[in-house]
């Protein structure tokens, strides 16, 4: 199944490749005509205002929103034929972990190992499974809380449990949907440390976020989604020099539906008019 060889990075197919891809719900596209290629070792931040479609895009990669058109390839395999799910580590956007029954952090993280087992065969957890679960908890700094009931952990700690769960499948890419949203500054700092530790280990990551500042120095590439289209794709430096052109999305407002922004169009775009909510805020 594995066509990628870590020894020859140049020969390896990209981890993700989207060509003119559209995602959405039944017959209503939210993201249209997206082109995006992610290669091993990249840390890509996906920015955009609320409702721009950035979550729809990553959820589409994970098969959670309907793929409506264009091409989506994972590790060189079309999405529909892709079955090697252990290679994808997904950290969903969640604010709390289920508290209806008790479950320890280690038990939640162990779910990540299921990708390496078959459901029709009785599961006998190996020493290797246990070791990987322990290591995943260690990477996110939760070794000492492995036996704690997840519902007693803080929001930031729960977020790290979800990252550890994704790591436990030993993935080739981590796809995270708003890992830093809604947690206090101190926990965000700890989370940023965890992400930078992962980046240093060469983990490929796609991170949907509102808070680019928390990820400064980790991100190697920035993609901006606006109104369901890729509006910018480049290095953090290139992004910084154009920062005023985009709304990174820290604020809640509606999008202009038909505002198909390309980088060139954006650079030449006139200042927003007085009735444009963006214009009001930017002034």
């Amino acid at each position, binding site marked *: 199944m594995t066509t990628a060889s870590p020894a020859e990075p140049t020969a390896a197919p990209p981890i993700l490749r989207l060509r003119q891809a559209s995602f959405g719900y039944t017959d209503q596209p939210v993201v249209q005509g997206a082109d995006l290629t992610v290669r091993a070792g990249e840390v890509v931040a996906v920015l955009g205002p609320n409702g721009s479609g950035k979550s729809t895009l990553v959820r589409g990669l994970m098969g959670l929103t309907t793929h409506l058109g264009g091409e989506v390839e994972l590790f060189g395999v079309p999405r529909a034929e892709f079955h090697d*799910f252990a290679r994808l580590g997904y950290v969903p956007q969640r604010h709390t972990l289920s508290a209806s029954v*008790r479950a320890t952090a280690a038990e939640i993280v*162990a*779910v990540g190992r299921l990708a390496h087992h078959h459901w029709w065969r009785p599961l006998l957890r190996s020493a290797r499974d246990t070791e990987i679960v322990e290591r995943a908890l260690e990477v996110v700094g939760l070794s*000492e809380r492995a036996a704690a009931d997840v519902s007693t952990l803080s929001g930031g700690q729960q977020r790290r449990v979800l990252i550890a769960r994704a790591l436990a499948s030993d993935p080739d890419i981590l796809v995270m949907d708003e890992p830093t949203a809604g947690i206090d500054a101190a926990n965000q700092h700890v989370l940023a440390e965890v992400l930078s530790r992962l980046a240093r280990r060469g983990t490929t990551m796609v991170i949907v976020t509102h808070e680019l500042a928390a990820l400064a120095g980790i991100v190697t590439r920035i993609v901006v989604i606006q109104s369901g289209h890729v509006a910018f794709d480049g290095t953090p430096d290139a992004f910084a020099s154009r920062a005023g052109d985009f709304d990174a999305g820290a604020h809640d407002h509606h999008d202009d539906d038909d505002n198909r922004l390309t980088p060139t169009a954006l650079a030449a775009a006139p200042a927003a008019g007085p009735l444009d909510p963006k214009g009001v805020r930017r002034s």
Partner: protein
Amino acid sequence: MTELLSLDFMRQALLAAVLVGIAAPLVGVFLVQRRLSLIGDGMGHVALAGVAVGVLTGHAPVLTALLAAVAAAVAIELIRGRGRTSGDVALAVMFYGGIAAGVVIIAKSPSSSPANLTAYLFGAITTADQRDLWVFAGLAVVVLLTTWVLRPWLFAVANDEEYARAGGLPVTGLNIALAVLTAVTVVVSMRVVGLLLISALMIIPNATAQLLGRSFRASVRWAVLVGVVSSVGGVVASFYAETPSGGTIVLLAIALFVVAASASAAIAKARAHQHRRAERHDHEHGPDCGHAAIEHHDHVDYVHDGHRHAAHEGHYDEHDPARHEARKENAQP
């Protein structure tokens, strides 16, 4: 007790109680986890319609009840899967339609009596015939094995359906499997606990177990233990007290819950005196956090400004070694 075991039908009743006592909480924990605690009750309603059809047509009521409950289970999952808000109303129509049809059909059947209906609704293990008991036992063993094999996957789906879907697990299939396991458990338990009370044996032992266990694994074990104690204890008590088995079992399960809840509240209160939270700090201790680490029994204490911090749930506790080990209440701070 020897008198009890010398009776053939009581031996069978006790065996049935053990099987139901294991199966019901084991399936029920996933219903609690998915916040579907009342779904078993609804399936019991629909199963009654199946029983009634069996009684009326002269077929085995067990078989018709099983068919009705399994059909309801699949329908429930399909309705839920569509995710419409009207699904909730659709379920209500199905459940009450089931029980209403059951009552009406049974009243029309020549061979039935009100006592007959009561036996199915509230359980009367000692009236079940031998052939039915073997069918129940066989089904209960199938439920136990299937739940055991699927346990990690049912846990994954119930815990985070979206993550399970992203990980390629057959989420819809597993949800239907859980619904069918619930339906079979309902039917298997109908002679012991009764169709109106079976849901209680799925849920209450799990509520008790949530107070006693510290992990999912431990709480499942507690739930099964509580389930078996309630069902076997209930059958024995109903024999001596001459009460219906179902109601006796459920009252016993509730009594155990009340005892566990009071005991755990008392223990929590006692522990609160020994448990001192560290001052609020944003720093996370760890191997390279810069604070001296001291191995201490099963955990590590970190020396923080001259006092010791140990991880507890989401925060840190103050660990004063003198007080901790010598249990001197008035040790030097």
